[in-house]
């Protein structure tokens, strides 16, 4: 009973935390410098990871689909499948999970560390809203950066796919691109890409919550990092189910 109560209390607290952050994003003064710092940290610094993972995943996916499609003589479908898979689902989801791992841990541990080393108190002592300066900027940066990273992931995977296909069947770049984009529609690209903003909100909110509210030594830092990654990854996958449904609702033609 108390566990259930704790659970709901927790959900309520995290939700309020997220809502407060979103509201805070629209209340001046804006912490521009800190926001840009987080763009650099979450976006730019994640880029190598995203590009490498996307490329590798593109190669792997391409090899797998080739193995299957060759049996049906449908190799021509490989680029189409690759783009459909990545634009619709794999790109957004994998990006979000990778960022949840890298950035979620960093935010959780970083904020907890700042709390423990009284950096947050130091900020507060300057009459600066540490929540806005540290949490809102991170959450908004996550929301902003994830779609961008997703685009990188999508294209890196296409590059990987092309690399793999070119190595096996010497397909030309133009043909690969044409067939990759032939059946994809904006509704397969824009909504799935933008939905990663929701994943960004999840990552920022969950890890921000753990980081900002934990106030206990190195143990706390560790736990905040772990909790951030685990919970935000889980939530991303669960929420993705809902988001896919929502996208189908608004773009009924895109249900594949």
């Amino acid at each position: 009973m108390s566990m259930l109560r704790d659970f709901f209390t927790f959900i309520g607290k995290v939700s309020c935390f997220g809502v407060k952050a979103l509201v805070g994003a629209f209340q001046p003064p804006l912490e521009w410098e800190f926001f840009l710092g987080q763009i650099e940290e979450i976006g730019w610094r994640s880029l190598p990871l995203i590009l490498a993972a996307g490329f590798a995943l593109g190669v792997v996916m391409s090899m797998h689909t080739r193995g299957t499609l060759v049996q049906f003589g449908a190799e021509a479908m490989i680029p189409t499948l690759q783009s459909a898979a990545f634009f619709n689902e794999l790109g957004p989801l994998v990006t979000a999970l990778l960022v949840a791992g890298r950035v979620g841990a960093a935010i959780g541990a970083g904020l907890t560390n700042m709390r423990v080393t009284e950096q947050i108190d130091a900020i507060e002592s300057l009459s600066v809203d540490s929540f806005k300066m540290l949490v809102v900027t991170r959450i908004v940066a996550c929301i902003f950066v994830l779609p961008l990273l997703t685009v990188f992931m999508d294209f890196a995977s296409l590059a990987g796919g092309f690399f793999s296909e070119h190595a096996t069947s010497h397909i030309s770049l133009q043909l690969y691109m044409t067939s990759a984009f032939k059946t994809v529609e904006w509704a397969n690209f824009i909504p799935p890409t933008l939905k990663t903003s929701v994943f960004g909100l999840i990552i920022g909110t969950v890890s921000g919550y753990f980081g900002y509210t934990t106030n206990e030594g190195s143990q706390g830092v560790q736990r905040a990092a772990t909790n951030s990654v685990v919970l935000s990854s889980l939530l991303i996958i669960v929420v993705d189910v809902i988001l896919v449904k929502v996208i189908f609702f608004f773009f009924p033609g895109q249900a594949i």
Partner: protein
Amino acid sequence: MKINYAAIGVFVLSAVVLFSVGLFLIGNSHEAFSRHVDFFTELTNTNGISPGSKVKVSGFSAGQVSAIQIPDRPSGKFRLKLHVDDKLHKLVREDSFVTVESDGLVGDKFLLIHDGTDQAQQAPRGATLRGQEPIELSAVIAKMTGVMDQANVTIGDIRTKADGTLDAISATVNNANGIVDGIRSGKGTVGMLLTDQQTSNSVKAAVGNAQQATANLDQVFVQAKQVMTDFQSRDLSQKAEDTLNNAKDASRNLDQTSRQLNVALNEALGPDRAGDNAAENIRESLANVNLATANMAEDTEALKHEFFFRGFFKKRGFYSLQELTPDQYRSNSYFESQRSQRAWLNATDAFATDAKGNEVLSPAGEQQIDQLIGTIKNSVIDQPIIVEGYSNQALAADEMVASRSRSILVAHYLEEHFHLSARNIGLMPLNATAPASSGKSSWDGACVVLLAKVK
């Protein structure tokens, strides 16, 4: 805090560039970035087309349905707005029409703008293109069944008419039979009744008409038969089926379909390879039938008053044997054409001289006659028989007397021995010359001719 603005710039800018590249590369991008032209079309049934459905011009992806205006009453039509790439505007002409198509068996529905003809003007912006309702197969079949029914009725009609013709022909023939019968069962030998020249003249005319009518009837019969074979040989039903298949294939234009069927029917009824025109045939035949039956009716009416003369005379072309000279008899086409049976009686065998010196039938001659009659048995009762008498005496008068007496001898024997009616037996003294059709040129004695019965 050192912010690496360059890094942020590179990151954000390249993401935006990639995103834009994606937008441009993606299939429907050209639609958003190119100039567009709107057309309208109206359909009573949208058949699954919804806003956003693809629009193709001659199969080339050209845009999408941007709006659908719902009609305000059941008889109204849906008004669809088609957002089409300007590049394809040239293909859209005023006679272009729009159909609902589907991508493969299970694919999406899309609108297809059929490109117009080169002669037609380019459809102006905002033009309403003719919407062609999608053809439901069931409707095609229903319509085709209707057409087929009509065709059947037409064919049935023709058949009935042809049948009618045949009926009329049989009726006429029956009538003719009746006349012959009447004469047969009539009053005495025909020749005796033909004293009045006027009567004989009118009968002559009637028979002439009747002959003409019969000839016509024959022709009609042949033509009617031809029509029926025509129908069969031209394989109308197969043609109709082909047309139906064509219609299904085309699945476009019912008007066209029915037109096609009409054409098919016309063609079927039109001139065949030999240039005969079935419809003409039928018309002619029917006209002939009408004429024939009309004539027939008239003639029959006239002959009712002198019924004994009916058909018999029509058939043989003369009224009495007595009126015929031996020459006329010999060359008469009626006797020529008759497939008659003959029994030749030789003067030396069949005839003998009795004690008084008069010529009589010898037992051998009687036996020969018995044999001939034996071949036709009971039907001899109403068998028209002509007894030809022959003689080759030196004197022409002797010849005439001898041939005549011989024919009388034989006729007598027939009448007495077989109890035949005298009206069925005609005498024809022919001196020495036999008719060409008999197969002999001259004879001495007699010949019993069993005339073939008129059917």
